[in-house]
């Protein structure tokens, strides 16, 4: 796990990037790899690398080259099947100097070209520089576990793990892209290639981008989630056989993630099914001490301590807990946004930022988590909601069909009808379009889009002139042949998983403290297996993650399997408006700051803030904040903080000494003199 950055010239007009610039770039992302630094430079390109050493601690330094030194790589992530790939490459005549996965990538690219990435099972963001052909190759793993950004302007291409590395170059202008904001305020995340910053693209997950010396640019998508078309062909496995097969694939995926590291790997334990199963399999993969980590909340509403401890006891792990309060969340929030590099609509990343610090301080550099299980195996309420709405849409006049919502949202059944009829009205929206591609997600997107009422006139104008890209305009050709669940899964993976959970709540929070996340449910073979399953193996009626519960049944305590699913949440708006909340909140939402950022209309922002402050001052036992207000306050505050830190500032933490352990500088002396 690491950070990468670089600057490459297209054509001959430019001087090589300076060492000072490259050093500033890598310094900005040193949290991603504090162990070692490396730099490669020639007349046309500079690559830098900040290393977090996990595999081949002694000889895995980067940048790294092929045998004749013509092909260079900087790489962030892991290729978990590198040993198998190496076995395929050696008979083809490739000779290896190191035991690292990095070197395998270089040879795989030599052997198979841009197609090599399809063969990788892993999580990566990388840049390959072919110095002879002057060709740059950028690639990212299937889900986009590891981040990668690119910018091209004036004959240069910049790339980096995090945007703040590009902002270390004073030549790179810093401005918020209203399109990225608008997508966030619809889908919860900007959709690659759109980013939050004007002129900067996010490399699409599961793709390769190439730049030739001529300046020609090409994007090839080598993977997107794909599901069986309906009517389904006969699936070869019974539910019993499929359960066994899934268990085996998960065990293999977990074992790869524990054993393919030259340092100990720990696990997060949320108290839910997915992380419990992951931790159990991680525990079984290797003898010795196994460390687990959990977040506890002072607010009982969010706390899952009982289940976390039950699981830690079951696997006899060395278990550490971190208790998080509202005040903790508010205090670290600006730092959280400096790492997410995008607005967020919930505070849930903040406790994970704090937890990764605990992990690092305990001496662990990599953790397993259960991320991806809900998307691959249909764990979320949104999937069940879509099924009910679909069922209801076939008989819209039915009073009985919507009663199923009581099973989905028990609070509806508990609170005697209090506005139940109105809640149903809400889900009834769009019921007349069950075949519409956005059917499952329309209610969420509609709710989220209410944030747009806060836009300033400038942002509205900019969006009218250049509307943000529409997700539904770029769906795979087969999308309409998938069933309701598969479509919903696809939309969930490309929006919330890639753009928020695995990034803002995942990689960025982990890497803030130099900890790598490893996700068995996002193993490429696990994903392919899950996506090919008949939908009713995943969602049986309204029983979510049916097949996974079957896998878990023999393995983990029943009370964890049978508990009602609790989404991971943290206290939201209340953290920022209760008495004694940090002063920066008021400042960031004050008229002057809002006007300065130019994103929102100060009047409505003031109104929202006042409403939330008034609510927080009232009795604490009433459910004080509506979903809309929670989302709006967190979303606006984070966008304001983003502006303050990345547009007014450059997003980098001050200071930091960089000393290279790998330094290959091929810029000829006369050229150096020329640039001096």
């Amino acid at each position, binding site marked *: 796990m690491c950070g990468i950055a670089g600057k490459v010239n297209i054509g001959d007009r430019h001087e090589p990037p300076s060492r000072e610039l490259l050093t500033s770039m890598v310094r900005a992302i040193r949290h991603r790899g504090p162990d070692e630094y490396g730099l490669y430079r020639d007349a046309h390109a500079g690559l830098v690398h900040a290393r977090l050493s996990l595999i081949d601690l002694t000889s895995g330094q980067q940048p790294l080259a092929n045998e004749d030194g013509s092909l260079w790589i900087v790489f962030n992530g892991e290729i978990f099947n590198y040993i198998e790939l190496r076995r395929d490459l050696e008979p083809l005549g490739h000779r290896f100097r190191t035991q690292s996965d990095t070197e395998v990538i270089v040879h795989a690219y030599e052997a198979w070209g841009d197609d090599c990435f399809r063969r990788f099972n892993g999580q990566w963001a990388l840049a390959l520089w072919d110095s002879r052909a002057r060709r740059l190759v950028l690639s990212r793993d299937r889900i986009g576990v590891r981040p990668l950004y690119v910018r091209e302007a004036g004959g240069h291409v910049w790339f980096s793990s995090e945007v703040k590395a590009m902002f270390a170059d004073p030549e790179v202008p810093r401005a918020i892209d209203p399109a990225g904001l608008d997508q966030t305020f619809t889908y919860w995340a900007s959709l690659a290639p759109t980013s939050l910053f004007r002129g900067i693209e996010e490399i699409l997950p599961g793709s390769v981008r190439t730049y030739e010396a001529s300046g020609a640019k090409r994007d090839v998508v080598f993977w997107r989630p794909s599901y069986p078309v309906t009517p389904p062909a006969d699936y070869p496995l019974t539910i019993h056989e499929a359960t066994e097969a899934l268990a085996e694939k998960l065990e293999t995926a977990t074992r790869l993630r524990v054993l393919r590291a030259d340092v100990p790997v720990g696990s997060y334990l949320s108290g839910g099914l997915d992380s419990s199963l992951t931790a159990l399999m991680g525990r079984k993969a290797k003898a010795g001490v196994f460390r687990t980590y959990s977040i506890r909340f002072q607010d009982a509403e969010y706390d899952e301590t009982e289940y976390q401890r039950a699981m830690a006891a079951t696997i006899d792990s060395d278990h550490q807990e971190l208790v998080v309060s509202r005040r903790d969340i508010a205090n670290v929030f600006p730092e959280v946004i400096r790492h997410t590099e995008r607005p967020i609509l919930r505070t849930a990343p903040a406790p994970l930022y704090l937890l990764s610090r605990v992990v690092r301080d305990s001496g662990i550099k990599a953790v397993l988590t259960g991320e991806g299980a809900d998307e691959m195996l249909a764990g979320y309420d949104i999937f069940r909601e879509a099924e009910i709405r679909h069922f209801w849409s076939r008989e819209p006049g039915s009073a009985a069909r919507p009663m199923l919502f009581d099973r989905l949202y028990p609070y509806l059944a508990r609170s005697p009808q209090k*506005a139940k*009829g*109105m809640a149903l009205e*809400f889900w009834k*929206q769009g019921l007349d379009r069950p075949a519409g591609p956005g059917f499952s997600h329309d209610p969420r997107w509609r709710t989220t889009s209410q944030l747009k*009422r806060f836009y300033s006139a400038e942002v509205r104008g900019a969006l009218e002139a250049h509307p943000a890209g529409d997700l539904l305009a770029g769906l795979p050709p087969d999308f309409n042949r998938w069933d309701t669940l598969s479509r919903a899964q696809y939309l969930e993976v490309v929006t919330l998983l890639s753009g928020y959970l695995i990034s803002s709540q995942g990689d960025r929070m982990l890497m803030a403290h130099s900890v790598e996340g490893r996700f068995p449910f996002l193993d490429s073979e696990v994903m392919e297996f899950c996506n090919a399953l008949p939908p009713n193996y995943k969602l049986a009626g309204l029983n979510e993650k049916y097949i996974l519960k079957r896998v878990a049944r023999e393995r983990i305590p029943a009370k964890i399997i049978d508990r009602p699913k609790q989404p991971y949440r943290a206290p939201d708006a209340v953290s920022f408006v209760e008495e004694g909340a940090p002063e920066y909140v008021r400042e960031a939402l004050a008229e002057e700051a809002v006007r300065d950022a130019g994103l929102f209309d100060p009047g*409505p922002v*003031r109104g929202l803030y006042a409403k939330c402050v008034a609510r927080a001052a009232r009795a604490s036992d009433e459910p004080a904040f509506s979903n*809309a207000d929670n989302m709006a306050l967190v979303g606006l505050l984070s966008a304001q903080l983003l502006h303050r830190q990345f547009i007014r500032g450059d997003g980098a933490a001050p200071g930091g000494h960089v000393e290279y352990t790998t330094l290959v500088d091929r810029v000829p002396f006369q050229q150096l003199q020329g640039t001096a």
Partner: protein
Amino acid sequence: MTSEEIRAKVHQFIRKNFLFDDKAQLGDDQSLLGSGVVDSTGILELISFLEETCSVKFEDSELVADNFDTINKIAAFITTKLHR
């Protein structure tokens, strides 16, 4: 309380609590749920406000969109209830 007064109070409440904007467009026949002005949790705030401000109590069976989905429907429903 006249139907006109109810309408005015509801307008004011929605602007202050949901739109956060005195100048926002808000039609008397605009579907509050359909246009996203009020979401499924926000509707609770609106109903509590109506119960307090208009001194009425709603039966469970009355909490349906036909009675609350537009400002005109709210005003008509409460007026009928008050004069019952």
